């Protein structure tokens, strides 16, 4: 289970990345939101990245497509309607890379762990119940709905 200090560090990393690079506020919720507020339909950009070494973990993000479109549009300076799935994938891979790389810099200041290469795909729908066995489910709130993340060790 992710510790309180790691939660804070992960939140700080996500806030910094989304704030600095994408001008989009996000915040890690202290606990899972009420089930009746879940909006799980639609597409997500599923992005997985891991780190290994003395400490190891996998983090899998489920970015709502609307969030990914807004971020990619602003980042690339292109009309949102013109953004391709590949651009969404590429942008969110980079976002996950930055969040976890920044997080790793905090929990592993000596640099003993190696960050993996992120892998992303566009998926239809998302089920928190379906991934809860894979690890601990965390939720970020954004202007575009919930950003889900599974933390597994």
């Amino acid at each position, binding site marked *: 289970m992710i510790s309180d200090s790691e939660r804070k560090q992960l939140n700080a990393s996500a806030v910094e990345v989304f704030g*600095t690079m994408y001008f989009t506020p996000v915040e890690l919720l202290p606990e899972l939101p009420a089930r009746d507020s879940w909006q799980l339909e639609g597409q997500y950009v599923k992005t997985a990245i891991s780190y290994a070494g003395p400490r190891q973990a996998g983090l899998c993000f489920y970015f709502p497509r609307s969030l990914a479109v807004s971020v990619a549009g602003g980042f690339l300076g292109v009309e949102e309607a013109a953004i391709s799935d590949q651009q969404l994938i590429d942008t969110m891979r980079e976002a996950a890379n930055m969040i*976890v790389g920044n997080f790793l810099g905090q929990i592993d200041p000596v640099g003993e762990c190696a960050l993996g290469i992120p892998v992303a795909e566009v998926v239809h729908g998302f089920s928190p119940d379906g991934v809860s066995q894979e690890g601990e489910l965390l939720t970020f709130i954004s202007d575009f709905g919930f950003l889900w993340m599974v933390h597994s060790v």
Partner: protein
Amino acid sequence: MAFNILVVDDSETMRAVIRKTVAMSGVQVGEFREAGNGKEALLVLEDAWMDVVLTDINMPEMGGVEFLREVKKNQVLRNIPVIFISTESSQARMDEVVSLGAAAYIKKPFMPEKIKAVLLDVLTKAYATRMAAEGGAPPPVAADEADF
């Protein structure tokens, strides 16, 4: 004097953003080349002279640290300044690349102003070196040209 710039990152999106940032910085760019990893970057360097390289660390095939080692082993390429732009923010990693001969290290996420400042600093030093060899050329950027 225009500078040839190579950006090495496995993210096409990030390469595009860095390209835009460099264009906005006011630096006079001659040729702008891109590579998706260290191996591709070495091929670019075999093909064309680059005045500065901006590279990520964490890339498939060949990462930025291995790329830097290869550059430093090459008598022709070893003086090309290599700037790292990476998510890997541990002090140990930064110390490692600086000890290997990196010209600078920029942490992601970054503000465009940071890239501009570092690039101008590194290019000014490279310009001084080239001036010593060639003489008579304008500086890397005009004072009122930067667009931030």
